[in-house]
């Protein structure tokens, strides 16, 4: 779809909703503040609904569905590393011990960030797929030039009209 009037409208709605919501937070102690908070939240929800409505118009992206649970697991492992560091601070009193505990926590977080998440996202990466398996998988590469397999092999794909 690319950029469009409806995108601009819903973005405007998002900005207005966010500003009203923040005004509500700023004056939350007052009745007006609470009202602004509700109004702002409602406007934000409306903008989110609008974004959802126009999302399918974007057209086909090359990204293939990948395991959602594994993505959130990766994020959870990152968070777990931090919790381990925090817990260790209260269990260990010496500087040396705290350094070791913090390093362990960092290691856990890095495992989530640099192993679990890339594996989750790359499991079904579009660049791994041969052209014939799906329309989306038709995307591959030629050095220095993004293109379609169909452009090179004439295999029928959903993106054939792009040329």
């Amino acid at each position: 779809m690319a950029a469009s009037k409806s995108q601009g409208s819903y973005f405007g709605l998002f900005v207005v909703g966010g500003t009203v919501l923040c005004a509500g937070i700023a004056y939350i102690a007052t009745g007006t503040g609470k009202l602004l908070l509700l109004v702002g939240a409602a406007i934000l929800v409306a903008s989110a609904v609008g974004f959802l409505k126009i999302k399918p118009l974007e057209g086909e992206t090359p990204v293939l569905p990948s395991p959602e649970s594994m993505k959130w697991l990766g994020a959870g492992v990152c968070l777990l590393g931090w919790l381990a560091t925090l817990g260790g601070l209260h269990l260990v009193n010496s500087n040396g011990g705290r350094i070791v505990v913090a390093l362990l926590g960092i290691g856990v977080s890095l495992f989530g960030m640099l192993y679990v998440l890339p594996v989750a996202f790359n499991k079904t990466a579009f660049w791994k797929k041969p052209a014939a398996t799906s329309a989306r998988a038709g995307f591959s590469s030629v050095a220095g030039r993004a293109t379609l397999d169909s452009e090179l092999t004439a295999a029928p794909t959903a993106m054939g009209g792009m040329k």
Partner: protein
Amino acid sequence: MKTWLRNHLLAGCILALSLAVGGMAYAETAAAPAQPAAAPAPPATAELREAAAKAPTPADLAKGDPGGTLTGNVADITVTDAKAGPTMADAGNQIGQNKIAINFVWTLVCGFLVMFMQAGFAMVESGLTRVKNANHTYMMNFFVYGCGLLAYWVLGFAIQMGGAAGNANLGGLYPLASEHSITLFGKTWGIFGETGYFLAGHAYDVGVMVIFLFQMVFMDTALTIVTGACAERWKFITFSVTSIIMGALTYPLFANWAWGGGWLSQLGANLGLSHGYADFAGSGVVHSVGGLSALAVCLIIGPRLGKFNRDGSPNPIIGHDISAVLIGCFILAFGWFGFNPGSTLGASSNGNLRIGSIAVATMLAGCTGTFGAILYMWISKGKPDASMSGNGLLAGLVAITAPSGFVSAPNAAIIGLIAGVLVCVSVYFVENVLKVDDPVGAISVHCTNGLWGVLAVGLFADGTSNYGGSWNGVPGSVTGLFYGDAGQLAAQLVGISTLLGVVFTLSFAINMVLEYVIGHRVSAETELNGLDIPEMGQLGYPEFVFRPEISYSKAA
């Protein structure tokens, strides 16, 4: 014993005499309102008035002052009573205001320099992307300023600095006195600030405005890091929304913990971890936050079409303008002189004369960072790669940002040199191992080297700095492991763990939600045609004639 008695008797006599004189003085003061004219002026005040009488007159000044010896004298002191002339109180007030004025001007001018870094980022990022996406990349760098500023004004600043009162350099910042805290394990920990929304109410204050401007441009630097990493495939709408959320929430939260009186800065006072998390100018707060957010979005958005072959090997996608890249790097290096020395938040008193040392450390680390990257590329690849040289400069600057206020010149050079090599290794790792496509190397420059900079404080801080005699409320100087304080290293590691565990996760979660609601990536058609027309409606270089790329022509 006799000596002890004699000393104490003497001290007692002096004390009694002082009290008697003080009492008389008080009696005189108390009596003064009855006959003010009769009270003799204190000698210092008399001297001031005498100097004022001898000061150059307007007639003298009207003749011109080519030597600059007449302009600016005792007659320029603002007096409370023009008839009585200047008093010591007037002189004291003037000195105090001059100190704050120097610090205000210093902080503001440094903030202006940091703001100009946006131009450098725009040039670097756009230069490293293809010509068909130039307008889109420039526009992201342009609009991120507005998105960030708006978000920070309405919410972000309050979260970050709402409880940051007590900065003596800027007059105390007393309106910012409300930090939301929780009590855990018997200690109070700051979580987020609560005053300063919209800069309204008590936040309508001269000092608050100065700190807002300075902190705002820092925040915007963090935001603009993401635009480079996700260039050439990011929907403008999603970029806009995520930038607003980052400026309102993600960045200010961590910045509060580190700089706004939050729990990381309290690790020293509460848990005895030396001076708590110390990040002088933001290797962690600005660069790691930006770099980690960039990594989160890059994972979600996926690589550009053509970046990876089916066997996973990466293809170089060359940027369109190396001159813009290198000029942009110089603009950034120039702006960094606002970033690091400006983070003293003053040039007068409280150890702020260290600004010269900080500026030189910044300069040196950038230099050795460039050397590190050039030598690494030249030796390992055979050519002193231009874009990696630029990234080496930036890596050195990013790495020295946190330690710049605490380290010596030789240590700054070492930190920069390591950063220059590290950025090359990291670029290789991100591309070849993680299979993450980062067109400008932002993750390696800002995330990897930001974390290295945070760690470097815990290793290289030499304990010679003295910013008012304490840091994060803990007396003494920040000192790293190599100078005998392992506690500081532990605090820095807790900061790194928080960046990885909280900032990355929060950024990832927010952007996953945006992926579900809006979608991050443009369509394949848009990406292949270039984002300039579909997303922006205009080519960056409308008079350029696009020709089929060589490799494609050959393949076809």
